[in-house]
């Protein structure tokens, strides 16, 4: 499907600088994400990958630079200064490195919270349960059922999130993020803590997120094999700066990357 990738941009981050006191977490980071691509950000621990994600999703506010999100049917949105929930409502969804599920709720409810429209709720509407409210409930239930099938958790629908295996939790997190009907999904180490067969399943799932649902994917991942097989393009971060960009083959051959990130010996690929 990579031939479908166009130069149509969906997220443009320009010259982002994020500081925490004296610590510079991101320095002049610019990233262009094309609509419909699977883009990966790699880099050693502490390179600023998660800081970048948190900036894109409104959890952190970079001091300098700009982030523009170009939704399909809306005016370009300037992300900086917006609250996390506004960015999520605009169509940028995310998962977290250490999965942050609602662990006392079951699988169904976890996705349903994502599927519900949290904008126009009044107290009265929620109480009286008029036809509009009921239609809304019905619609979100349908979204949940479809997503359960999509990520393969239909049989686990009634299990409590904390009872799931690690791999299933990661899939549930992706389903919850997809439930908000996003145009872009940011996946922060989706395969962390999973076993090799779960990793393969996740890679397959991520590909289907883009192919079947048309959602652009931006991911951070440590597992090189997974990244190289999944991503169509990569950015390499080190010490808060972008040091390389390109296709997996380009990046793998780039001497700067090999020096900075992979180390001089290729044995250490897995970091």
């Amino acid at each position, binding site marked *: 499907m990579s031939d479908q990738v166009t130069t149509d941009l969906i997220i443009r981050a320009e010259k982002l600088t994020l500081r925490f006191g004296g610590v510079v977490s991101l320095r002049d980071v610019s990233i262009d994400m094309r609509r419909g691509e699977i883009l990966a950000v790699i880099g050693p621990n*502490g390179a600023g990958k998660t800081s970048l994600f948190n900036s894109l999703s409104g959890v952190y506010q970079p001091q300098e630079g700009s982030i523009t999100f170009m939704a399909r049917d809306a005016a370009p949105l300037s992300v900086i200064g917006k609250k996390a*929930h506004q960015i999520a409502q605009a169509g940028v969804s995310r998962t977290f490195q250490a999965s942050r599920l*609602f662990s006392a709720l079951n699988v169904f409810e976890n996705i*349903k*919270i994502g599927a519900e429209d949290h904008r126009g709720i009044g107290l009265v509407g929620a109480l009286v349960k008029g036809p509009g409210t009921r239609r809304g409930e019905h619609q979100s239930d349908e979204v949940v059922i479809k997503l359960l099938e999509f990520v393969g958790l239909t049989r686990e629908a009634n299990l409590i999130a904390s009872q799931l295996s690690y791999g299933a939790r990661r899939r549930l997190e992706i389903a919850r993020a997809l439930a*908000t009907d996003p145009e872009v999904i940011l996946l922060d180490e989706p395969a*962390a803590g999973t076993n090799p067969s779960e990793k393969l399943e996740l890679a397959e799932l991520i590909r289907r997120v883009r192919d079947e649902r048309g959602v652009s994917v931006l991911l951070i991942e440590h597992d090189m094999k997974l990244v190289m097989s999944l991503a169509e393009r990569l950015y390499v971060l080190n010490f808060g700066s972008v040091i390389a960009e390109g296709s997996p083959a380009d990046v793998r051959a780039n001497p700067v990357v090999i020096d900075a990130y992979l180390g001089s010996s290729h044995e250490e690929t897995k970091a």
Partner: protein
Amino acid sequence: MTMFSPANLKRLFLILVITAVVAVMTGTPGSSTASPTTGVHGSFLERVSWFGLFVAPRWLLFTTLGVIVWLVVSLYRPRARSIRRGIDTALALPKALATKRSTRVALMLVALVVVIFLPKFVHESFWMYLIVEQIGVWILLALGLNVVVGFAGLLDLGFAAFYAIGAYTTAWLTGALPAPALFHHPIPTLWVIPIGILAAMIFGVLLGTPTLRLRGDYLAIVTLGFALIIDDFVETQSGVTGGGVGSAPVPHPALNLGFWHFHWGITPTPYYYLCLVFIIVFIIVFTSLERSRIGRAWVAIREDEVAAESVGINPLKYKVMAFAVGAASGGFGGVMSAGLVGIVNPGLFTFQISVNVLVLVIFGGMGSIWGVALGAIVIQTATSYLDNYQPWGYQINDLYMYIGALLIIMMIFRPAGLLPSRRRAREFAAAKGDEQVHTDEVLTGDQP
């Protein structure tokens, strides 16, 4: 064998220390001037009757009781597992029944019948009055705070403020405050109910909007500050609130529907039914809110605010909503109390009241509407009984010592409360199992 092992002897020592404390607590108080040792004498040396069998000094009685407890514990511990298994099998059937919908409905109907006919069995109007003032009003307060603490997970240490606002609004609108009346004629107390509820909700929004951006401890401190401000305001602004003395008498409510006229008078029974109706209404409203989108958004915020935001939930909006909704039943509690007691004064809204409501919520089970109602009934009944009968050398000032001990025991053996909500119980279980996950987070660094 293990009976006299060091660990078990240590346990004996601990039990004896606790017994000594209990002996002091239940003994006669010492006199600070005449003879400072009267307390010691009354606690330990006084000769008392042993259950009417024979007479011996208290220290002997308490030591014997301590040793008996120790023996029971020592014998129980090696067999704890099999005993627990026995209890589990014995409770399996009742537990299975309790989770059935039909049983629950039946229980609810029985409870309803009991509460409807309760005044028929309570003949003394003094007790009827206590049931409304000490239990009914407190159920309302606990239900309201449960929305804030239990549903939305916001620690509010100043809930009495909403209670005060409900009560003072009532006094104001019925012309019992020095403050200039809002309407030309004071309005009847009953019609104050919607206005009192609304006033409390508006204050909930006003207080919530700036403060609910804070999380956890910070929020608790701000709510505490707010309660102290309200407390200070009503205490010192005599020109507006009547100051420490309180309001003029608040007229009893009356209902005039043209064809039917009813007057709430001195007898507490009509208040009982008024209170009951509103408790049922609030239970229904809060239950359906809990099951609505709003309820789910509250759970999401309570469990993980960052994750909730990531799916498009605006935490501030829902927290303010929880504050306003909780304030509604707290405010009604105030209206109720003003109408029943007939006077409003600052003593009713101290910090201690806020803490007390919080105790009811924690004891009953945060987030569990029925648990909180039951918790309020249990604790408030016990408190009223202790205050009015003062059994076993109990003194009113000791109340919080016992409540404190009760809470400690609850936190150890039943942290999710008397009747925990299913979700909350799971959260507690998950929190126990989560330690592994947290260490992982630390190890991978790269914190979000």
